[in-house]
Every structure is written in structure tokens, then in C-alpha cells.
């Protein structure tokens, strides 16, 4: 019971969400898709937020990720509607690692 409670309290899905954002910071060029259906892993980050992990991302998160794609001029095919957010909201969390590393 203690173990179950531990898992509930320290639920992992949230970790996954944070990891996506952490990785996006490190790999800004990567858009792509996460295709597990064919059991081939094509590691692409941003699309994780839109695809597989979507239940973990709220609308605001998705809008943020979308705006990063736009800002970095990563190519998307057609616009995604309903993604208007204030510009100041665009920064990704985990800003502690600086460009000066």
C-alpha cells in the first residue's frame, strides 16, 4: 500500500512532461513525430507535446510549444488554429541552464 501511495504521489506522467520541455531546450531543431506504431523510434521532440503525450499538456503548453516552433522557423505544414498566446508566455520552463554553458 505504501508503494502504491508513493506512486500516486510521485506520479510519473508529470515527469515525462517536464522531460519533453527540458529536451526541447537542449535540442531546438527537432520537430518531428514520435512514431511508435511501427515500432520504430523516430526521436523528435516537439511533436511529443502534440501527439502521444497530449493528455499531459494543457492548451497553454501546446500553444507554447507551437510558438517555439514558429519562432525557430521549424517547418510545419499549415497553420494550427487557436494557438494565440501572449508573446511573453512563450518562454519554456527550466530556464536555469544558460547559453553561456
Amino acid at each position, binding site marked *: 500500500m505504501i508503494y502504491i501511495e508513493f*506512486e500516486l504521489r510521485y506520479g*510519473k*506522467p508529470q*515527469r*515525462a512532461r517536464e*522531460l*519533453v520541455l*527540458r*529536451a*526541447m*531546450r*537542449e*535540442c*531546438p*531543431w*527537432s*520537430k*518531428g*513525430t*514520435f*512514431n*511508435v506504431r*511501427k*515500432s*520504430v*523510434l*523516430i*526521436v*523528435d*521532440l516537439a*511533436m*511529443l507535446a*502534440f*501527439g502521444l*503525450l*497530449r493528455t499531459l499538456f494543457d492548451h497553454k503548453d*501546446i500553444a507554447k510549444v507551437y510558438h517555439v516552433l514558429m*519562432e*525557430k*522557423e*521549424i*517547418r*510545419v*505544414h*499549415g*497553420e*494550427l*488554429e487557436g494557438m494565440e498566446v501572449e508573446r511573453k508566455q512563450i518562454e*519554456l520552463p527550466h530556464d536555469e541552464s544558460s*547559453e*553561456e554553458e
Partner: protein
Amino acid sequence: MLAHWEEILKEAESKDVWIEYLNYRQTAFVSFTYPEIVAVYSRCLSSFRRSAYRAKDAEERKEIERVILYVLLRFCHLAREAGYDELAIATVQAMMEMNLFRSESTLPGSESARETELSQFEEFWDSEASRFGEENARGWKNSDPDQDPPEASKDMDWEMNASTLDEWVLREIQSKGRMPARTTDELDDDDPYRVVLFNDIKPLLYTFSTDVIQQLPYAMLQFCGLHIPPVETSSFDDMLTDAWLHNSFNIQELWPPRSTDNAIEWINGEAVEAERLPGIDTPFSFKRKIYPATFDTLFSSPGQWFQHFEPSDFASLNTQFLLNALNQLKSVNQEWIMIYHLAIENIISPTTVLKTAKSYLKIRKASFRLWNAYALILWRREDPEEARRVWKTAIGMAISMKSSDVIILWQIWISVEFEVDQKQARHLFSQISSERPHFGEMESVGGAGELRTRKYIHDQFYRALSFKDVDSLEGYAFLGILLEYLSSSNLDAALQKSSEYITAMQERGLTGSITHERLLLSISKLLYIHSKAQGWYRLSTLRDFWQEAINKFPRNTAFLSLFTWNEANSRIDGRVRKLITTLEKSATVDTWIFAVWAEVTIERGRISEFAVRSILENALESKKSVPPFAIPFFRQLLTLVEEVSFYG
């Protein structure tokens, strides 16, 4: 920071500085934009180009050209990963056309000569004739500029306005890997990146003038998603484990199925820990294939040995492009590319491969490696009689031509016979030393005849060693070890023979060479077959052998897999972890992924979430000490973390 870099670049435009700069720019989040990074790569390539033109000798130029190829390939991966699939594909096509299908015989050695050549190439590009990898492509030199462009293809219906997120995501997924469109195509959308104009690729193009050009077909395969080393490449080659170039991979069998076993069993009302069960049945399920390409790994039966190509490796690849490309490379006439072609076609188009093999044999009658490949394909298709016939003919030819390649034919034939019938293998051994082998009646094996054969193989091995004839050397060494095994039925005797040969090779400076690695791999197969067939063996014998192999070739994932598989059968926990800890310092991204895989598979049904996370976090930490691998490394590992999280 950027200004600082500019200063450094001004002072030293060395290879290492440029690569570090690329790493930095590609990963610096705040300053990163796609157009910026394209400009950085173009500048880098232009700088290397100038150095190559200025190079004082062929050796120096070759070194620079190797880097140019690396940077180009890396750019293609980057463009594709940023969504510019068409540009990435077009760049690869243009590189192949310009280098392998050029008609001009003088190679450009200056910027102005390059300009002249490029303006001719531009005509070809703008003619919209079929390009490398496309249906009916004839190659730049054979194309007719006055020919009408191919018929316009109709674009598939492409709904540009997605009203829901799901539609949008679906369209993104579908657009992956799309071939470049043509100016003549009727495009439904106004997406400017569908068509790749000459100016988009111009800054990237380069004509290779050293034998680096022979690496291009391999680079193309790599770009297409097939991570196979060129044939003379050992697992030490940095390109093979470079994380920037190896971001997608086959994750089939990476994560074990969820266990239904109970962690605790009840015996007489008392809870006891359930028995440990090995989580891996075969050593072949880890799919980051960092080991040399050999006939064994190219044409293996599923589940019998390591396979460089398996159907699942092709699941998300553009196989039509691959097949077209390989067919078009026929005119380039590279023996091993032909063999790779057969190995690939054998998987994705098994009905046509024999025809292709015959067509190759027609143009390369004296290529005994091609004969070998052909016979092996037949053998693996359960057509042993035909396969034997091919080997007999080829061996006869090789003997009459006095070709030293004859030993390669013997080696492969005998080893496949050995897999099914040891007596047949011993019979073949008796013919090796003969000028006129007679394959007909089965002689009695053993006795004086076998002694003679042993002496013959022994002498040939040392002769090849003194002439540094590495191909023959490897064949004789393996056959010597196999014969020792067959005639003594004793693994220890065979291993003793192998250490004798390896020591002799060491004295000639062959330690760590591709020959050494391939030989260890062949012996590994013998050990594996022994363990499967005999049932009785000491785990420690195999452990010691593979431990030693890993010491010599720490990046080789076949040795790691075999070691782990052997340990999974052992009752004592922890040896794999201990081994991996010793590798951490020099670990490549593949080693780290291997560590995760070993952790989750070695014991059935027991995944320690914390142990996995700890490996991953250690790996992320270590990236700081291995800059060239740094970031994509991180990326792949994070994705693994995600997968682990899905598991929970």
C-alpha cells in the same frame, strides 16, 4: 558568447573548432533559428572547401574531405529533423549525382572551377529530369538536357487548414519523408519548401577528389536509416556511434513485455521471492547494431545470429527510394555496395534478389565475394543443393585463377555446413588443401588426412600473417579454430587455438583491427552454436571470452549482448552492471542505451524504475565530458526516460 566564438573561429579554422561551434549553435536555444543554423553550416562547409583546395597533399585533402562528408550528412539529418525533409533528400540526391554520375573528368580544385561545374549541374537540376533514387533516373552524365521533363505528378489532396489538433498532427506525421516536388508538378498547396531550388542546395555541394567518394553510398544508406558500417570499418569508427547521425532506431524488443509473473510466490503460506528468470532468450534483440558487417551478419537467418538487416529495420523507410538508389549504383561498380544491395533486397524484395545477384555476377565474374553472397542467399532459402553447386563452381574457378579469395569461399561454406551437419563440414575440410577438390563421395574423416589439413591451415595462416594478407589470414584462423573444435569436440582446445592465433596477430600489430574484431565475432558464433547444441559448457568460459572481447572492443554491442545473454543464465546477479560501470567513462550513446536495455531485460518482469532512471541521469551527466556526442545523446536518452515513464 557568440562574439567570443567568432573570435576563436577567426584565429583557428580547424576542424575541431568548427565541429564544436556547430554543436554549440545547434543546441543554443535562445539564438537558435533554422535559417541561422543553415547559414552556419553553409559557412562551415565553405571554410572546409577552401582548406581542401589548399591542401598540400592527398592525405591532408582526404582528411578534410572526410569531415566535409560528415558535416554534410549531419546537415541532412538536421534539416530532416527540423521538418525540411525535401531539402534533406534533395541534398543527398544532388551529392550522389554530382559525385558518382559526373561526366567531366577534371575535378574542380578551386572555387572558380567549382562555380563552372555547378553551373552545368544547375542545368541538370533545373531540367527536372529524374534524380538519383527516383524511378527512371539515368544519372547526370546520361541525362539529355533537351529532353522533356517527366510528366507532372498530381499532388495528393492536401488539406491545408486543419481545424483540429488531431488533423494537424496527422498531417505532420504524413508529411514525414516526402520526396521533393518539381516546379512542373501541380501542387495544391502554396508551401514553398516542397520544391527544392538549385540555390537552396548550392552552398552545400562539393565534388570529392579523394577516395572519400567511395564512402558516399554508405552515407546515403545511413541517411536512409540503415546504420551499417562500410565493410572495412571496425566498431571504433566514430561515424558509427556518432549520435548526431543516429537518432532513429528500431526499438522493437527494447522494452520487454509487461510481466504477469508475481514478484512474490506463496509457499506453505509464506511469502518467498519468486525465482529469477532470465529475461532474454537470445542475444540478438538489442537493435543498435555496432559491430562489423560480415557475410554472417548480412545474410543470417532470423534468430540464428546477429543480423544487420531485419524486416523491422525497414518499417519506416522509403524502400522504393532505397531499391532505386541501389539499382542505380550498379554502374558505380563497388563490390561491397553490390553485396549490401543483395542483403537489403533479400529482405525487402526477396522475389527479385536472385535475379539481381545474377546480373551482378555477369558484370563481376571474378568477384568471389559476390559468388559467396549468391550461394549464401540460396542456402538461407533452403536450397542447399543449388548453394553447394555455386560454391563448388566458384571454388574451382578461384583455384584455377590462383585467387587467394578461395579461402573466403571455403570459410563461409564450411561454417554453414557446420551449422547443420558437423560431419559434412569435416569432409569439406579434407578438400581445402587440394588443388583439385573432389566433392563427390564422403571420405572418412579424421586420421592422417586431417592432420595434413591442420598443418596446411596452420602454414597458410602464418604465411598470410607474414604477408599481412588480412583477408586470408582471417579465413585460415577461423577455419583452424573450427577444425580444432571439430576434431577434438572440445571447446577449450578451440579456444586455446584461437588465443594462439590472436597472440600471433598481436605481435604483428593487428590488435584492435577490423580483422581482429571480425575474427572474435566468428569465434563468438562458434561459442554460441556450441552452447545451443551441446547444452553443457561452463558459463565462465564464455564469460571470459566475451569479457576479453569487450576489453578490446568496448563499443561492440554484439559482444555486450552475448556477455549479457550469458549472464542472464547465471544465478549470480550484478556482473553486467559491473561491466557497464567499467565502460561508463568511454561510453558512447549506444553503450548507454545498451545499459538501459540490459537493466530492463536481464531479469524477466523486474524493472527497477529507479535503476533505469539512475542510468539515464548518469548518461545525461556524462554528456558533458563527451562533447561530440553531447546533445542528440541527451535527446535519445530523454526519449527513453519517457518510455520508461509510460511503462509505470
